[in-house]
Structure formats: C-alpha cells, structure tokens
C-alpha cells in the first residue's frame, strides 16, 4: 500500500506481540521536584506540571522536599488498606467469575491513589470518586459486609440494587454516589466545594477521573469553574495510560495532563501515582491550600492500569501481556512495603500474616454478606423499591404503575 497523505491517527506505543518499552517517559528522579509554599502564585510553578513529584526512590528511601515524614503507624495503616484492597479485589474477581457478581472492576496497580489521597484528608472532606477509587472506603472504615452486599446486589445493598457493582454510595463516609457516565462527578465536586465555601465551612472536596475521561466536557467545566470561583477542591486526573483499549495518546497530545491546569491559573502538579508518600504529600498540600482559601489544585496522578478495564474486558486483544511488570514506577504496594521494611518497621513475615488475616476477613465478610442474599437467588431489594426514590414521594403515576405491577 503506497503511503498516501491522509488523516493522522495516533498509535499506542505497543500492541500485542510488542515488547513494552517505557524508555521515553523521561522520568525525573525522586526528590527532584521542588515544593512551593501553599500560597504560591500558580504562574511560578508551571514546571511542576511537566515534572513528576516522587518521594520514594529506587532504594525505598523517602527523599526530597515533598517527603511528608509520616509516622510508621500511618505508613502501616496505608499498607494495610492497600493490602486489603488488593485481596478484596482478587476475591471479588473470583466471585464474579463464578457468577456471584454481575460485574467487577479492580484497582490493581493503582491502590495507592485512593488510599494515600484519602488518608491525607479529613473525614468531613467530601469524595466524588470514579469507579477506580473504592479504596477510599477502607480508609474511612466502611464495613466490608456493606461493600460486598452492594457488589452482590442483595437485599442489603444500600443503593437498593439499582446500579451495577462498584457503583458505591456511602453517605456516612461522605462518599458521593458513583455514576457510570464518566466524568460527571468532576464539576459536581466543584459545585460541592463552592457550597462549602458559600457556607463558610473549611472542608474540602476531592474528585478523580481517568486519562480517557479528561476528554469529556465535564472535565473542562470543572477546571474552569474551580478556577473562576477559587473553589476548595482537589481535581485529580488519574492517568493510568489507558481508557479501555484506547491509549492516552488519544486523549492528550504530547503534553502532560497536569499542564491542563496551567491554562486556568491553577497550581498543577504531576505526581507518581505508585508512590504512597508522594501522593499523600501532594494531597495534603492541596488540601491545606483549599482549606486556607487559596482555591483549587489540579493534579495528574501518573500510574498504570495493571489489569483489564473491567470484567467485561480482555486486554490481551489490544496490549502486550504482563506489560505492567515493565512499568518503571513499580508496584505501589511493594514500594510502600519495602520502604517500611527498609525503615525496620515491617517484615515479609508480617506482611504474609497480614495478608492471611485480611483474606480471612474478606472471606468472613463475604459469607456474612451472603446471608442477606445473593445476586442470583436473592433476596434483593424488595419490589416496592422499584418505584421509590425516583422522587421524594411517588407521584400518582408511579403509584399507579406500582399497582399495575401488582405490588
């Protein structure tokens, strides 16, 4: 085929059969990025949008100005949550394969995102996650049984079986109902933050969306409104390099996602998403800014989607196998664990023990959850719930339809 001049269409950097190669990522070293004052003029730190905040270096040491200097107990807590999330994900996936869940989505390789960022916040800070941050619930101590009841869509599912699994809602934990249409939560989070400011409250709102989703209009609304009203919000693009089969080359030119905040005069930071300490630190910084009335911060969380997009997906059709193993920024859980071991605060044996403990917990919780029903045999949310919550009170036409259904 002669190469006629025609429309340019980007390529993914590698496809099945190719050897994954991450050389041109040009990663800065850990500790290199500067840490500005929270009242910095955003125009002075544009470089941070093209750099990468890293704290944990290759030797598992915490280095540089962004080192949050966390107590070992906090690090251990983080490790525990991340370990739990990984085990939980694995179990749920297994159960999905057995037909006990209609659907599932894992966070493998991205566990640090929700957990480090969640831990850097106050419990009254409000969360608008995408489906890829279930870990927030562990941080805030949600009952595993409740989470599983939602995932297996039984009678105790607090969203009454109306959404697919992993579309959590948890009012008590200030986690706002997750929606399937991607990105819609981003500008809602900004509105929520505007309301906190309106009321003179100092809690912060935080939201996440993916690299692919950053192409939606909602992304633009969010960043723009956040800037105009100096909303106390933290806006995160979780760049895990893929949107289902579509590589991030289709959602940004060669620029970084972080650089999108520059155009709205927001402090814009790119952070290693597999580095618990860097994430914690950047998020604390952003939260402090927001709380002090300095407005919004825009963060690109740089990470890698290690597994399939969801249980409906088969990534071997569009990318090399085990590609994640070559990701130069490693495994967030391993890195935190090794850091703790390096500090003399943890050991492989302790980790094994922890894993066993948490696996037992998940299994126990799963069994407990099944007491409230299963996806296939019920009991599910009762039939009357079909017509509830459409409005606060069912209007006449819904009451009539309910009767038609004979309930």
């Amino acid at each position, binding site marked *: 085929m002669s190469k006629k001049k025609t429309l340019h269409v980007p390529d993914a950097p590698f496809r099945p059969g190719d050897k994954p190669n991450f050389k041109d990522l040009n990663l800065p070293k850990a500790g290199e990025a500067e840490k500005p004052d929270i009242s910095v003029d955003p125009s002075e730190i544009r470089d941070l949008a093209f750099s990468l905040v890293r704290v944990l270096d290759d030797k598992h040491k915490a280095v540089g100005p962004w080192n949050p200097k966390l107590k070992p107990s906090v690090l251990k807590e983080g490790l525990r949550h991340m370990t739990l999330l990984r085990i939980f994900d694995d179990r749920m996936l297994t159960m999905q394969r057995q037909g006990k869940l209609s659907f599932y989505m894992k966070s493998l390789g991205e566990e640090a995102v929700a957990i480090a960022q969640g831990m850097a916040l106050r419990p009254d800070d*409000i969360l*608008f996650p995408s489906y890829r941050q279930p870990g927030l619930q562990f941080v805030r101590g949600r009952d595993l049984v409740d989470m599983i009841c939602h995932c297996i869509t039984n009678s105790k*599912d*607090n*969203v*009454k079986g*109306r*959404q697919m699994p992993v*579309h959590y*809602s*948890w*009012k008590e934990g200030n986690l*706002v*109902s997750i*929606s399937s*249409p991607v990105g*819609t939560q*981003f*500008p*809602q*989070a*900004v*509105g*929520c*933050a*505007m*309301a*906190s400011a*309106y*009321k003179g409250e100092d809690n912060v*709102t935080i939201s996440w969306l993916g690299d692919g989703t950053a192409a939606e*209009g*909602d992304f*633009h*609304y*969010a960043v*723009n*409104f956040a800037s*105009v009203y100096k909303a106390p919000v933290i806006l995160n693009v979780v760049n895990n390099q893929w949107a289902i089969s579509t590589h991030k080359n289709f959602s940004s030119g060669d620029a970084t996602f972080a650089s999108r905040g520059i155009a709205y005069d927001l402090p814009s930071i790119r952070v290693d998403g597999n580095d618990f300490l860097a994430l914690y630190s950047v998020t604390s910084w952003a939260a402090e800014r927001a709380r002090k009335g300095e407005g919004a911060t825009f963060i690109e969380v740089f990470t890698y989607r290690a597994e399939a997009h969801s249980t409906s997906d088969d990534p071997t059709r569009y990318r090399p196998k085990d590609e994640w193993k070559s990701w130069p920024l490693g495994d967030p859980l391993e890195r935190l664990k090794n850091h703790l071991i390096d500090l003399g605060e943890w050991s492989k044996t302790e980790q094994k023990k922890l894993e066993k403990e948490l696996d037992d917990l998940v299994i126990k919780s799963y069994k407990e959850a099944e007491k409230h029903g299963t996806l296939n045999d019920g009991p599910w949310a009762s039939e009357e719930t079909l017509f*509830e*919550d*459409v*409005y*606060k009170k069912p*209007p*006449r*036409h819904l009451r009539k339809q309910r009767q038609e259904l004979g309930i």
Partner: protein
Amino acid sequence: MPQMNIIQSVNSALDIILEKDSKVCIFGEDVGYFGGVFRCTDGLQAKYGKHRVFDSPLSEGGIVSTAIGMGINGLRPVAEIQFSDYIFPAFDQLTNELAKLRYRSGGEYWAPVTVRTPCGGGIRGGHYHSQSPEAYFTHTPGLKVVMPSNPYDTKGLLISAIEDDDPVIFFEPKRLYNGPFDGDHKKAALKWDTHPKGEVPEDYYSIPLGEAAIERAGSQVTVLTYGTMVHVAREAADSSGIDAEVIDLRSLVPLDMDTIEASVQKTGRCVIVHEAPKTSGFGGELSAQVQESCFYHLEAPIVRVTGWDTPFPHSLEWHYFPSQERVIEAMKKVVED
C-alpha cells in the same frame, strides 16, 4: 394587590425565597450584576450579595453540574439557562445525573436544583430562541416539569419548585413575560396590568406542583394546553363561540390526570395544544393517557394542534406558531365529528 408581569413575579418569588432561606443561591449567565438578559434577577445581587446571586461562565453544562454539587452539599440552587434552546449542553447532567441521583444512590443523595429557563416562540427569535423542549424532560423520570402561563401562577409555582426537594425544570414562556398573548401578533401588545392573574401578592405564597387550573370552564370540548397556548386557546374558545373547557396544565410532571379525566369525561371531546413539534411532543403523551382513561367517553378523535415537525422558522414564525384559527378548526372538527 400589586400588578406584576411575569418578569416581576419571577423576581418577587426569587426575592422572597432568598430572604427566607439562606441556602438558596441563584446563578447563571448574566444573572448577577446585570440582572439577566430578561431582567428576572434585576436588583437581587445588590440586595443579597455577590455570593447569593452571581454570574457564571458561559457553560450550561457547568452551570447544571455545579448546581448538582451545591445541592448535594446542602444548598438549594436556582440555575438560569438563558434560553431553553441552550439547555442541551447540560442534557447529560440533567437526565443522567440530576434526574437519577436519588434513585441510584438508594435515596442517600439528591439535589434540590431548580432550573429556570425561558422557552417558546412568538418573539421573532427564529431557529434558536423559540424552542419548547419540555417533552424531552417529561420523558426523564426523576425530573419535575413546570410551565406557568401567568404572573400569579409563576410566582406560586416557582416558590414551590424551589422548595421542592426534587429537581424541577421550570419553563417560562418568554412571549408572556410582558403581557398575555393570544396568538394574534398583529394586535397591539397587551400588558398584564389589567389581567386578573396579573394581580400578584407581594408576600410568600405557593401553588402545589401537579395541579392543573381550569382556565375557562366549558362543556363542549376539553382543551389541554400550557404556557403561551393557554391564552391562544382561551381566546379561540371565546371568539369561536365553542364552549370549550380550557385546562392550563401548569405542571406536566407530575400531571393532574384527575382534572383532565373529569373534564374529558364531561365533554367527551379533547383537543391538545402546544408549541413544540408534534412527533413525540407532550401532546402525544396527553392524547395517549386521555384515550386510555376516557376511551368510552370519547365521541371524536382527540386532535393535536402543535408546532410542525420542523425547526422553528424566523420569517414564517406565524405559519409555525399554532394559531387561533388552527385551534378553532380543531375544536370545530372535534365537536362536529
């Protein structure tokens, strides 16, 4: 009692509710300092402060989505979409988010957002300043849909809409802002000055959503309509000598089927009138429901008088806008059939 036009009655409703509930805030394009391109929010920013009544970026999607977030976090936002022709960039946030939030979260979250937006034709606005998109929203469970036809109802319904914990799309027929309009564009413009429904109490009052009003009692045929067409239909009845019962629906969702059924069962005949295009317009739904519940009372086919299934034209506006003649013709047909 003071006489108000619809702009003033909207303003009065907003004024009262801003005073009454510190959680109410109002925002949208040009609504703040300027007071809105139709001046519905005139003076409110000066009175209540910049954070209560403010301008937004030119972004309907941003307006509705941030309003949802505010609603989730305890405010009661009233968002203005400058023309209902421009509500579509917010369609996803309205239909997939605002409408479904309470349901999908099992009742944990909801957002008591009111979206005010001027709609309808008759102002030479052509293609993109004349649309009546209400049917789209009536097909979206979770939303309430309201369209008043006079200053008195506007104020009472708007207060109810804002106080309602469900989201409400509140359509304001812009052709009626300054005066009633019976469809005859060659007549001198009327004012609300002397109209009984132009009398609007200064104080708080509310009209429940979901109750139709009988605009004109009659026995020969029931005319179901709303917004500007209420006036066209009433005048058509008056001038034609057909004793039509004109029902002003006021609220499309929830719909007052009791009033509708009682009327059609009495008259045995029904005409439906709206400005929006015919196919899948709200008139289709009304017709379906009426024949479902009044089939054995109907003595003639229900007839719809609507905008044509075309976009809204500019120079041929009056060929598009359902005229008194077309309404009369329909009433005659139905009565004589």
